[in-house]
């Protein structure tokens, strides 16, 4: 018998919810966290807006996390902090997980595995920023860590590239700490962050947002001295002759998040190039039996409430994991979607309340989302407006789906 029924890797909001859900089913659960405390990135999110759906309140990230941490502690779930997973292997249907801690190296076994490993930020090099390599170029999350965790000011005169939510939050945070935010520049023609963040973090503080602009070069040998900003065309390529130099000491990047699935990949999990996370079914089970995935490791969410929801579902499903064969059908989202999850439906399982998360590829007015099975429409929903930064959630009864059925998600004008 394995040491644990369910091992959850990562104690951010997804992992906390997953561990709780598995524990509620009376299973032996191990929750593994590499940091010194649970909560993940929420611990550095001192702004509010968390928990509206889950708790019906506006909480800070830290408050939201601490509620879950208290629940996990109250439930007496076994947790191991400052613990790093170096290896996971599946042998004879059981997962062997090697853990490194201050106490040494040990291997535990588990029947099911929940990967709640979160995501990481795209870096300056990954978005092709060239020029020199000075100090003062930070991702938004790094800057947030410096300010909110270490209490240190990383910037005085700031340019922010990318209008992702963390970038917007940091524009406000840096301003409150006395830095001058010269502007937020976004290569796309529309903002990447939530509308409410643009209003509350930029508009309220008079910080300009320049869409269709990007940073094409950085200057300065020791510390950043200036950035070059260029206008970009529809293909996001810089337009010659539009370059302008802006003096600043800090460049903050909020240019996208990438689900962290390096561990999943070592297990042979298939990734969805659109969602950038593992392909999974409605129970968040990946294509490797017994490996479940949730939260931002699955796809990047904009609300923590949805992260917790997917965590709870994955945790419950992992607790129920019996190794029984699945009978999978494909759920395909058409080109109008940036992505949709899940990508598979286990017809041997319950499909009556299948939750589908999706984002549209572009900003669209008056649209209709429909789900059809073998060409027959079984669900429709109308939207006044859809935009990529805002994830949508639908719940569909797909009980009728049989293995081999063609299930499609379609987006049309309404």
């Amino acid at each position, binding site marked *: 018998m394995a040491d644990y029924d369910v091992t959850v890797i990562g104690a951010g909001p997804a992992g906390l919810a997953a561990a709780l859900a598995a524990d509620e089913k009376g299973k032996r659960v191990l929750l593994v966290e590499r940091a010194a405390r649970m909560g993940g990135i929420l611990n550095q999110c001192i702004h509010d807006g968390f928990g509206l759906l889950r708790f019906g309140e506006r909480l800070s990230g830290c408050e939201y996390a601490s509620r879950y941490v208290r629940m996990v502690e109250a439930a007496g779930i076994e947790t191991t902090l400052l613990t790093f997973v170096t290896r996971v292997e599946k042998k004879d249907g059981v997962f062997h997980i*090697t853990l490194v*801690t201050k106490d040494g*190296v040990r291997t535990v076994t588990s029947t099911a595995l929940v990967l709640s490993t979160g995501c990481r930020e795209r870096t300056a090099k990954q978005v092709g920023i060239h*020029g020199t390599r000075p100090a003062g170029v930070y991702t938004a999350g*790094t800057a947030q860590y410096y300010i909110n965790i270490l209490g*240190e000011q990383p910037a005085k005169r700031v340019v922010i590239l990318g209008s992702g939510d963390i970038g917007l939050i940091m524009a406000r945070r840096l301003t409150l700490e006395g830095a001058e935010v010269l502007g937020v520049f976004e290569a796309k023609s529309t903002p990447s962050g939530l509308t409410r963040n643009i209003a509350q973090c930029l508009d309220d503080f008079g910080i300009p947002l320049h869409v269709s602009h990007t940073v094409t070069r950085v200057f300065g040998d*020791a510390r950043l001295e200036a950035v070059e900003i260029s206008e970009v065309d529809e293909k996001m390529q810089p337009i010659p002759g539009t370059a302008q130099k802006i003096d600043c000491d800090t460049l903050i990047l909020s240019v996208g998040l990438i689900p962290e699935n390096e561990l999943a990949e070592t297990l042979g999990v298939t990734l969805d190039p659109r969602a950038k996370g593992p392909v999974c079914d409605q129970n968040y089970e990946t294509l490797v039996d017994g490996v479940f995935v949730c939260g931002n490791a699955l796809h990047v969410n904009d609300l923590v409430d949805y992260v917790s929801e997917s965590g709870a579902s994955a945790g419950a499903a992992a607790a129920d994991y019996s190794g029984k064969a699945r009978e999978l059908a494909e759920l395909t989202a058409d080109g109008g979607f940036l992505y949709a999850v899940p990508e598979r439906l286990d017809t041997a399982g319950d499909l009556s309340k299948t939750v589908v998360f999706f984002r549209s590829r572009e900003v669209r007015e008056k649209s209709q989302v429909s789900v059809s099975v073998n060409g027959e429409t079984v669900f429709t929903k109308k939207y006044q407006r859809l935009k990529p930064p805002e994830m949508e959630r639908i719940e569909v009864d797909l009980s009728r789906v049989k293995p081999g059925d063609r299930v499609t998600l379609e987006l049309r004008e309404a």
Partner: protein
Amino acid sequence: MNVKKINRRLQKNGFAAFSVHETEDGLVLTGKSDNWDEIVNAGFCAAKKYGRTHVINDCVFTGDAIPPIRAPKLVDKAIDGMKPDVLVIGGGVVGAATARELMRQKLDVLVVEKEYDLAIGASGRNDGCVHPGIDLLPGCEKHYYNVRGNRMFDQLAKDLDIEFDRCGQTVVFDSKKLLPLAPLIKLYFKCMGLGNVRVMTEKKLKAFEPALRDGMKLGLFFPTGGVVCPYNLTIALGENAAQNGAKFSFDTVVTGMETQGGKITAVHTNRGTVYPRAVVNAAGVFTEDVAKMAGDRFFSIHPRKGTNTILDHKTVSMVRTSYSLISELKEEGHSKGGGIIRTVDQNVLVGPDAFETYKKEDFTTEAKNVAAVFQKQGRATERLRQSDAITYFSGVRAATFEEDFIVEKGRKCANIVHAAGIQSPGLTAAPAIAVALAKMCGEILTAQGKKAEKNPDFDPHRQGIPRLAKLPDAERAAYIEKNPAYGEIVCRCEEISRGEIVDALHRPIPCVTVDGVKKRCRPGMGRCQGGFCGPQVAKIISEECNIPLEAVRKAGEGSELLFGKTKGGAENG
């Protein structure tokens, strides 16, 4: 030296605005242009490849102001009045290796480096290849030192406890032209001392390097090739020199020299004046400037920039050894043209390219150069994708117009030795160059009446920082039992523990900066590029070295990461 002939050649090749004249120093090229490439090409036109009379570039470049040397602002008297037997100028691989070689004798050695750490110039900005010397012919200095240096690497890596992989090097041809010559090629390289070169036709080649594109006609595998981490090597050499008594002074730039009767009597720096008996000129792109200070400028350096890209670990299966494609398409330039290399840290390195520049320290990168390298190297494998890049960097080679190394005693200055023009395969050659330079220094000192005396305490061994992630579980556990900090992972991408980071801060040559730690034990070298571990590394530096967080630097002077406490941070102390 037929100056007339050279001038006619310049005329004929479109360099009418240039001319040479012979002086006792060498062949002086004069002329004027606003186009740097034109000046460089005139230099090439005037020079004889591998020749021992060098082109000295006195041309006037009107296109831009040539930037001054990047010198530290610091001024103090830290080394003032020191009288080392040997002063080594430059903390690159040659300077560090030479300092180590010199310590085999009972000598007082001082290394000055203008940057904040070792290997900040070309030594830390190259592809790490230990070359077999495929295109080098006997007779040139490059061949001499490459052959000898290459042979030294196995022992050196063992002594210095650094990773070295003699994985071999593969050259791939997409043309059939060389196929009939295959048996001769094998024999040729055998005679050249490159060992048992494997000649592979299409099918065998594909089995050998499966990620190569179809249609590669011929592959040559050179078993004596290898890879090393170039800054790790340089740091290890420096550390071992320091352990054996060599002194290192960083942020120290040579500003001038006093000479008397063809001898250097004093060397001025921003940190005081030193009075060495002998001087090693290992100043990389600035060797010409140092030679000039010594009244011994008989060559010129024309900087040549190259950019390399590092790919995510995930891509490492695209190359087993390292390969570069020689295509039928005509290629210009003086570089092999780069390749796809599996580094000792299991990343893929792509590059470098080669561009002439008048800026000796232009370490910037350009999107178009990276794209061009990917396009070129992508002809060898379809698996190469720019989206897998995690970082890119540029270095500047110190090339002479003769494209050969200069490893010799001063021609007019009696107590200097030069290591100039050390570009590829300089990393491979460095250990052998160091042996030669140390010998020359010994001769200079003997001539001054200082008897050579072996250093009985010299220990060639240096112990590196343990790399926990590479150890078997049981060994790793044993380390953690001794020091629990080895069990606390700080850098998730490269799996580096707090213990390793703390170790990096307490080395024979400590470098208390984020980049210094990064080069010594790799936190921040992975796919998140220090996004997660950067602040934690800064905090460990602050705690371990007892300096305020806002004084922690990324790299050299003026690269502090932070501006001080936040409003709330100040309240909370």
